[in-house]
């Protein structure tokens, strides 16, 4: 309670320095949270990618042979050899990792260009799409190569102009497809799930470029308690088995740590390199440290200045029985409140900035492959803010407070009480 009073007193008596302290903290937290939140957008679980933490992705394979090297999506046979039947996998989906543009129309009228994702039945179990009507296609339908399509709500609206298209036939590149279901639009920044339409898919020989390469990507849903590292170990073992069997052909698969977690996937720059999580983490933590330490040095100076004015109070508190540790905890407690006010202001500013202005500075999706819609998309409030984010901000506030107040408070507590009371040590 007295912490609040002290802050109110400081705001009343020393408004400039107190507001500068709050503004400095707010700016620091704003920068820290902007980095953290924008990093988090790519890994936070949000429908239909609600299980991102349990999902691993294997979009590529890297092959070396007498003709040179090739890297890119796998062919289905190799994908199954490497990823099917691994312990700890609850569900596995084989998809075409690339979206294609298709000319779509209802009854040969109203032609629209829509992005198409080719997926199997398991895809709909891994990702929790919200079906407005109809249902996902089953594996038997996929295997039978039935021409079925699932539309996003906005695509259905665009094509049907208000008509319910479920069960109707539409033309996809002039081939009739039955609309099996309609789903609510995924957010355009969810690049693994966003599309305007989805068709059932099995890779055929025409899309197999070589014995290894083709047009298959793999999505794995882990069983509860499964360890991603043990999945990786098993896949690496299968790479080794494949390489041993292919040694005579002088063919080798280069293992780059797949399947990847979402976090690793965001760090992946290409199909022939491994995402370097370690370096990325070091860079990230160094960046956080700089963003914490630099403002903390400034705030520390201001805290010292504020404490100099209170030195006789500290002396009186000591005279009446406050121990050094009590003085330190009192000063850190008071300053934490001040840091918290700044932190909350910084967090609010960061959410507002990220919701409305971040596109000016940040690309959330791969701009080379993104549609205009995706490139212009901004994260939603739900993607940006969570209690986890709040507690991370609180943690940053706490660290900032310890760095900026710890030393001045410790020094203030060491002051000889007699000198402090007389103001000699101010």
């Amino acid at each position, binding site marked *: 309670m007295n912490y609040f*009073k002290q802050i*109110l007193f400081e705001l009343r008596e020393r408004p400039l320095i107190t507001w500068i302290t709050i503004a400095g903290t707010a700016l620091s937290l704003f920068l820290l949270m902007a980095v953290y939140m924008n990093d988090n957008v790519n890994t936070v679980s949000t429908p239909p990618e609600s299980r991102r933490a349990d999902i691993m992705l294997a979009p590529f394979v890297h092959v070396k042979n007498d003709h040179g090297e090739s890297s890119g999506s796998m062919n289905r046979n190799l994908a199954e050899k490497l990823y099917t039947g691994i312990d700890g996998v609850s569900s596995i989906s084989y998809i075409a990792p690339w979206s294609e543009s298709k000319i779509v129309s209802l009854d040969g009228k109203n032609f629209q260009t829509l992005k198409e994702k080719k997926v199997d039945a398991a895809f709909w179990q891994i990702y929790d799409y919200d079906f407005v009507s109809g249902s996902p296609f089953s594996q038997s339908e996929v295997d039978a190569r039935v021409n079925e399509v699932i539309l996003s709500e906005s695509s259905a609206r665009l094509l049907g102009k208000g008509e319910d298209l479920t069960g109707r036939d539409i033309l996809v590149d002039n081939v009739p497809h039955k609309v099996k279901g309609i789903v609510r639009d995924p957010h355009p920044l969810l690049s693994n799930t966003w599309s305007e339409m989805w068709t059932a898919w099995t890779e055929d020989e025409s899309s197999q470029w070589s014995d290894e390469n083709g047009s298959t990507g793999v999505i794995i849903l882990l069983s509860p308690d499964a360890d991603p590292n043990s999945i990786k170990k098993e896949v690496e073992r299968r790479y080794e088995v494949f390489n041993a069997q292919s040694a005579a052909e002088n063919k080798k698969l280069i293992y780059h740590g797949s399947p990847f977690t979402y976090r690793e996937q965001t760090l992946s720059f290409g199909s022939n390199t491994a995402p370097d999580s370690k370096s990325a983490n070091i860079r990230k933590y160094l960046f956080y440290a700089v963003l914490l330490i630099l403002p903390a040095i400034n705030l520390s100076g201001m805290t010292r200045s504020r404490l100099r004015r209170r030195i006789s109070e500290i002396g009186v508190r*000591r*005279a*009446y*029985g406050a*121990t050094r*540790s009590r003085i330190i905890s009192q000063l850190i407690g008071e300053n934490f409140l001040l840091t918290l006010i700044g932190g909350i202001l910084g967090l609010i500013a960061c959410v507002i900035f990220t919701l409305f202005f971040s596109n000016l500075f940040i690309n959330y999706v791969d701009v080379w492959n993104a549609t205009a819609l995706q490139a212009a998309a901004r994260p939603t409030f739900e993607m940006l803010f969570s209690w986890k984010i709040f507690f991370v901000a609180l943690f940053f506030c706490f660290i900032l407070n310890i760095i900026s107040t710890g030393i001045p408070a410790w020094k203030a507590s060491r002051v*000889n009480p007699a000198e402090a*009371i007389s103001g000699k040590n101010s």
Partner: protein
Amino acid sequence: MIKLEGVEKIYRTKEIETLALSNVNLHIDKGEFVSIMGPSGCGKSTLLNIIGLLDNPSAGKIEIMGQEVENLSDAAQADFRNHNISFVFQSFHLIPSLNVAENVALPLIYRKGISASDRKKRVEEVLERLGLSHRLRHLPAQLSGGQCQRVAIARALVGDPKIILADEPTGNLDSKMGTEVMHLLHELNRHDGRTIVMVTHNEEQARSTDRIIRFFDGRIVS
């Protein structure tokens, strides 16, 4: 009650050493009201600080209430002060952000085992005794100098200390308020039996106490 033997205090900087107290031997009995007088800079306040464990001597022995205190740890000194010694300062030294009741409660906040309700009760009792019950929620800035010093005395009393150390307690007050504060101190001495050591420049006030100790250049001269 208070015993000092061969106490010295030297202030050292890189350039000079200043002898603030030199071979001070002093005995103050329980319930005594003692004045310390001397010119500015002669070491009166230093002596008070050393008796109050606010400063450590460079040499010598200090015994308070039968306990040798000069070698106590910082935390033990803080605890000893909290239970046995109180201070009244010339400039009151009330905490400006706290109201009267919170300022008075300060010694009890640092004492273990006192509930908030007990603390409140004791604060109200002592403020009632000093005629300040109507000022409970006022900030120090809203009080007169005399009221501030009465609040400071209330703060000094609330922890029921055996010893009160007063450093020029009337120095910042007009004569009327000064007389009022001296009356209060005498009452605390006579009625409650508290030992009081007071630094003063006021000869008349000093003469009203049980004994005058005169200081010059860090030594007791009479």
